[in-house]
């Protein structure tokens, strides 16, 4: 065979397997993960998600490190954040993260016409939105839950009762914190998707969503204080906190829905209704987009 000869293989048909809709769904989900985390994108696309992930997880590692250190030097009874308190940090981060990620997941596809490509593939509108939501859910759940695992097993490691005894005695915290993470996702992601579905730019949708969520609490507080108790349901950002406290068995009466006299299950119902309603609206928006 002569050296230096380039052989033009021409067009080669694909004779391997075709995975159909299931393969398309997996590809969509993986692409969603890459988008949420800014992978295979320019450096600035990575800055926000990885920065927020670091802020969420590093304090837990730091607290456990301090606990180990204080135990080493003989200082006992050092206890930092509880699981419930840690949600005050991760809940806020989740709000910002979900707002930014929802825009990144939905807006570019629509603005740049990529939905036409999805529409020509073996995917339904529901597949597209579910694939995007699943990717966001996995990332949000992971970064919200990871610090609780660090806290839980860190405490078990430093426990005076021994690792096994601590885990056996406090195992309930594992599913409770997992359930609370899901509640935060269910409360925040659907409305964030709704804002992203109607926004021309990811940052505008994210800003509007965060603004509405942040303003909902003072507006609801003001209305409840003048005697309009049903307005307690408008405190959108506080519903996941109410339900989280309910799941973790924390008694807290300072939240607006509670001040307005609503039981925690009402907050859960509000979260479910808003999720369903916004889901339907997003679906309707996308059915006409291709």
């Amino acid at each position, binding site marked *: 065979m002569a050296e230096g000869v380039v052989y033009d293989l021409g067009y080669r048909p694909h004779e391997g397997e075709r995975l159909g809709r299931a393969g398309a769904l997996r590809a969509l989900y993986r692409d969603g993960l890459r988008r949420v985390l800014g992978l295979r994108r320019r450096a600035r696309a990575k800055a926000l998600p990885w920065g927020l992930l670091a802020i969420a997880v590093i304090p837990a590692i730091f607290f456990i490190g301090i606990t180990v250190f204080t135990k080493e030097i003989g200082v006992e009874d050092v206890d930092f954040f509880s699981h419930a308190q840690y949600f005050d940090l991760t809940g806020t981060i989740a709000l910002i993260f979900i707002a930014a990620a929802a825009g990144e997941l939905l807006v570019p596809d629509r603005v740049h016409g990529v939905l036409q*490509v999805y529409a020509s593939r073996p995917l339904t509108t529901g597949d597209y939105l579910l694939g995007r939501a699943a990717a966001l859910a996995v990332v949000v759940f992971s970064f919200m839950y990871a610090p609780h695992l660090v806290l839980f097993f860190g405490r078990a490691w430093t426990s005076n009762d021994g690792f096994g005894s601590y885990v056996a005695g406090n195992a309930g915290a594992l599913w409770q914190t997992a359930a609370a993470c899901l509640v935060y996702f269910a409360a925040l992601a659907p409305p964030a998707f709704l804002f992203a579905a109607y926004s021309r730019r990811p940052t505008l949708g994210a800003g509007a969503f965060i603004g509405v969520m942040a303003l909902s609490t003072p507006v609801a507080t003001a209305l409840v204080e003048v005697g309009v108790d049903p307005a307690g349901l408008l405190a959108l950002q506080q519903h996941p906190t109410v339900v989280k406290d309910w799941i973790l068995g924390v008694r807290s009466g300072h939240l607006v829905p509670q001040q307005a006299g609503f039981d925690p299950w009402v907050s859960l119902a509000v979260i479910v209704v808003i999720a369903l309603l916004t889901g339907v609206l997003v679906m309707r928006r996308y059915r006409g987009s291709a």
Partner: protein
Amino acid sequence: MSESIVAARGLGFSYGDIVALRDVDLDVPAGCIGLVGANGAGKTTLLKLLLGILRPGTGLVWTLGRSIPVEALAVRSRVGYMPESACLPPDQTAADFVGYAAELAGLPTRAARQRASDILGLVGLHEERFRHMGGFSTGMRQRAKLAQAIVHDPDLVLLDEPTAGLDPEGREEMLGLIGRLESFGINSIVSSHVLTDIERTCRWVVMLDGGRVLRSGPLTEISATDEVAVEVLDDPAPLAAALAAAGAGVEVKGNLIVVRGGSGDPFDMVRDALAETGAALRRLGPRRTTLEDVFLQGAGDG
């Protein structure tokens, strides 16, 4: 419907009060098919109906022998679509996006990446495959759009105005690529309002006007006439007079005479007139019209 790659019966679609397609009957064979018509004729609507992106308002439609929209998901694994408008994310490389497009059509990840590389080479983007597409020229974007449409080795690809926005050189290259698709085993339906593009690449033509099918058939049949073109070396007047005297319809354009047979075969009439006048013949053959002539005539009749 097994012989047709695309078929329709009484197909209609409206956007609210605006009728985009009405009562369309089609049977389109394999090969390179031209879909021509003015802007707003219903070409893009028809392509979206063939993919199942739109649901028919009336009638039935089949793509690759499968009923749409019932079997649309199965069909889409074997069909590619190159939209007329932008469809490329500017912050992704061509290799990433075309590979992803292949995965979305159901190809396994490794095969998708390999094919993305092969197809980007085929459309002339091998050197640019790791560049973000936001920096692509119009010609490169059109090539990338074609690449995502054929990367999964479809049986049929629907190309919506593939030469839109291209300069003459880019247009030549794109038409060359489209012309090669059939040799790859990929049937194509090329929508365009540029009739010369269709004449150069397609063997079968569907003409749409105002949402209706004007003509559908092989290009050779559509462009054929019952007229004969005779070109002579010297003065055409004696030959034209002889033909007129024999009862033929005659139209003289310079040295060219267009002959319409009256009662007899126009070729026989030309033969006899040439023998009678001794005119020096340069060229003789059936006169073909351009698609533009056919379209304008059909639109006028409609």
